[in-house]
């Protein structure tokens, strides 16, 4: 019954999105149906949310007569993973995708009232157009509520790598970010249709972009940490297509966030901002397509299917192609705003946008390159970290330096001398940091070396906008910017330190033997069997000594019963100045076990920085909404 109710809600929501699209389209042409659009959008959001709740309930009760549950869940699974199973598969994750889409559309319909009503109606029609295609995709090609007859006995289980608390949190967060960007896309469509691109448009769009960006940042940070401790490879970013798929919308959204500020404050960059709004959500859809179609081989594509890929590609071509064509036709008629000098806040933000776009281009090319080579030369290859690090690293460092200087510049025009005075102290610190690193740790590669010193200088410079101000009277959104920029510096410091100072040891150890990694001396105490609710494991006991400190680590090699799979559970000890990361490998000949040991100084700063970036975004969001006196809006994000 629950499954049928969910399916009915989904069909109804699809019908409402069609109604919303038609009514919206007619209203923009002057037919008197505009009052219909907002209530329909809200109802559509409620129905989609209901359908997703129904699917969660079906998973919670492990209803094995539903094909999706039988294929992805198991009676013996802990409840939190039963719930996580809802989105740990193709159909469920697409249902989550569309539920977020519909709910954000409903939130816009319910709360956004500052733009001319005609623009808002066109925006909501755009949102409905996107939703309609994805409803069709779910209902035709991937019905999550399909029944299985006869019902399965116990279910096949969820990929054990996905049975992890991090996963209960990571995909929904990322999806809210991905799909939240659809609001910016629809705003751009609405503004293009009604030719209303101006500061008001930017101010209306800004909180939505900020909200989506906060979730995207959190999702990427959590995903990176999840891959770090769950995959057991000791790395925190693999430049894997799935990761790139989440990074690309983030880069576009970050650029958008800044260009929106220029448009809102100075009325400039209107065409560029509209373009970025289209690109940001297009990158979300491209990401969904790359992940869901299995077209690129990835270490973590958990749900792939080429025919569904074809469907998403079709939707993608309609929406992205349509939006870009609309852009080309209409943007020429949009008024460009005021001019500005290169040395100005606007100038720095333009540089920020160009660099972010260049990095986005590099990541996109690198992600698609294997596909191109295969199409032309027929060879399979993969583009790895060497390309991405070498190509994006220098641009990213330059970007971070500009990030530190930008907020210190005045709008419209500023003088180099004034800027120089403000950045003198951070620059001295940067040089000092560089000298100190050169002296203390000679022989570093150039990128980590620059990374460390820039992180140091920029960390200080990012606080500079607060100097000489009354901290209590500084607006919350300025605090938000400072915190986010500081977060970038902190994360950069963590990345550079991890890259420069990590130590790795691979040993084949017998019980009682010791090995050294970084400042730690690690003794292999032995192995014991261990078990959980749906797995058994071999657990190693390691004691790590550093002076008087003794840590005990217990990495495991786990064997899951359903489906039968082996995973390795890294044991990680976090101390003030870094993490000790240990993995138990295969048993070798004559009682030896393979152990992989890493010492990673200050690696936790990477995710701490990510958290700060998101926190800053949240502060800005609250600050903006309060300043613009629309308290209702952030209830939507609570």
């Amino acid at each position: 019954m629950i499954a049928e109710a969910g399916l009915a809600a989904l069909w109804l929501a699809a019908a409402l999105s069609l109604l919303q699209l038609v009514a919206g389209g007619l209203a923009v042409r002057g037919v008197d149906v505009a009052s219909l659009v907002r209530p329909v959008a809200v109802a559509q959001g409620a129905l989609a949310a209901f359908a997703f709740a129904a699917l969660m309930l079906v998973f919670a009760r492990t209803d094995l007569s539903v094909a999706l549950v039988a294929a992805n869940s198991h009676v013996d699974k802990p409840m939190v993973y039963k719930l996580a199973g809802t989105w740990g598969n193709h159909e469920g994750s697409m249902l989550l995708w569309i539920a977020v889409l519909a709910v954000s559309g409903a939130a816009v319909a319910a709360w956004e009232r500052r733009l001319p009503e005609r623009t808002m109606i066109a925006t909501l029609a755009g949102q409905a157009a996107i939703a309609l295609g994805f409803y069709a995709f779910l209902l035709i090609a991937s019905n999550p509520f399909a029944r299985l007859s006869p019902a399965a006995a116990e279910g096949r289980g969820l990929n054990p790598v996905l049975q992890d608390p991090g996963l209960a949190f990571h995909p929904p967060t990322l999806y809210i970010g991905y799909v939240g960007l659809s609001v910016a896309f629809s705003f751009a469509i609405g503004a293009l249709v009604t030719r209303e691109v101006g500061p008001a448009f930017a101010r209306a769009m800004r909180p939505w972009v900020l909200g989506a960006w906060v979730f995207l940042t959190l999702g990427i940070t959590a995903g990176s940490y999840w891959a770090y401790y769950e995959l057991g490879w000791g790395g925190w970013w693999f430049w894997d297509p799935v990761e790139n798929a989440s990074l690309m919308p983030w880069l576009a959204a970050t650029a958008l966030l800044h260009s929106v500020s220029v448009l809102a404050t100075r009325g400039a960059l209107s065409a560029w901002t509209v373009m970025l709004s289209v690109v940001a959500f297009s990158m979300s859809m491209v990401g969904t397509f790359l992940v869901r179609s299995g077209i690129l081989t990835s270490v973590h594509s958990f749900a792939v299917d080429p025919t569904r890929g074809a469907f998403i590609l079709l939707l993608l071509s309609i929406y992205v192609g349509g939006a870009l064509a609309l852009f080309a036709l209409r943007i020429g008629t949009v008024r460009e705003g005021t001019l500005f000098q290169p040395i100005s806040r606007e100038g720095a933000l333009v540089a920020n946008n160009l660099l972010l776009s260049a990095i986005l281009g590099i990541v996109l090319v690198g992600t698609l390159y294997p596909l191109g080579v295969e199409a032309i030369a027929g060879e399979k290859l993969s583009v790895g970290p060497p390309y991405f690090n070498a190509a994006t690293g220098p641009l990213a460092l330059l970007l971070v330096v500009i990030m530190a200087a930008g907020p210190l510049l005045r709008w419209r025009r500023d003088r180099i001398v004034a800027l120089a005075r403000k950045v003198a102290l951070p620059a001295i610190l940067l040089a000092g940091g560089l000298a100190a690193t050169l002296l203390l740790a000679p022989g570093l590669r150039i990128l980590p070396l620059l990374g460390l010193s820039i992180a140091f200088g920029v960390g200080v410079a990012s606080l500079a906008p607060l100097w000489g101000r009354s901290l209590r009277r500084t607006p919350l959104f300025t605090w938000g910017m400072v915190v986010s920029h500081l977060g970038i510096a902190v994360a950069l410091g963590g990345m550079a330190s991890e890259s420069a100072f990590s130590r790795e040891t691979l040993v084949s150890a017998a019980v009682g033997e010791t090995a050294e990694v970084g400042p730690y001396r690690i003794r292999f105490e032995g192995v014991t069997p261990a078990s959980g609710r749906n797995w058994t494991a071999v657990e190693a006991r390691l004691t790590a000594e550093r002076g008087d400190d003794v840590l005990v680590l217990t990495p495991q090699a786990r064997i899951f019963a359903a489906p039968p799979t082996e995973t390795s559970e890294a044991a990680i000890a976090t101390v003030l100045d870094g993490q000790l990361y240990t993995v138990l490998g295969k048993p070798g000949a004559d009682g030896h076990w393979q152990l992989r040991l890493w010492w990673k100084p200050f690696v936790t700063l990477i995710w701490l920085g990510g958290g700060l970036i998101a926190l800053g975004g949240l502060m800005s969001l609250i600050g903006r909404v309060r300043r613009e006196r629309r308290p209702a809006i952030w209830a939507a994000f609570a």
Partner: protein
Amino acid sequence: MRVKGQGLLLWAPLLAFVAFFALVAAGLFKPADTAVRSKLIGKALPALTLPPIVPGHPGLTGEERGPRLVNIFASWCVPCAAEVEELARLRARGVVIDGIAVRDTPAELSAFLARHGNPYRAIGSDAESRSMLALGSSGVPETFVVDAAGVIRYQHIGAIGPQDFEAILRAVEDARTI
């Protein structure tokens, strides 16, 4: 002020997207081939000279001829024990199997063969995994089908299971005809 050609520039994003579309559509509708092929397929098997390790089996001299399987295995490798059964079935169909024992000892290997069965003609001992490097092998077990001219025709990564039996047998049959 509008620069001439600016109108065309506005269409550039759409053109870029069309190129993207063509590329992925081409990739999507090609038959799926997810295996990463060894660079050595179609190339000659490197001459491997590996000493004998257990009595009753010659080592590898690099002089072996004829179509055969070259199987990289070890007594300490659990999947290797599982695949011996399939290797024995291949042996029963007349397939010659040469083994490369990686980082193994005579005592351990003899026990392994006594316990799980012995489908091998020759077994060479590779104490330093040199052959794995020469063959571009990714791990143990791994199996290569070599034809009469000494050219690698097929590579199987991981243990040979019942579902792989037919494909390997077919590859060996193909290797008989040059």
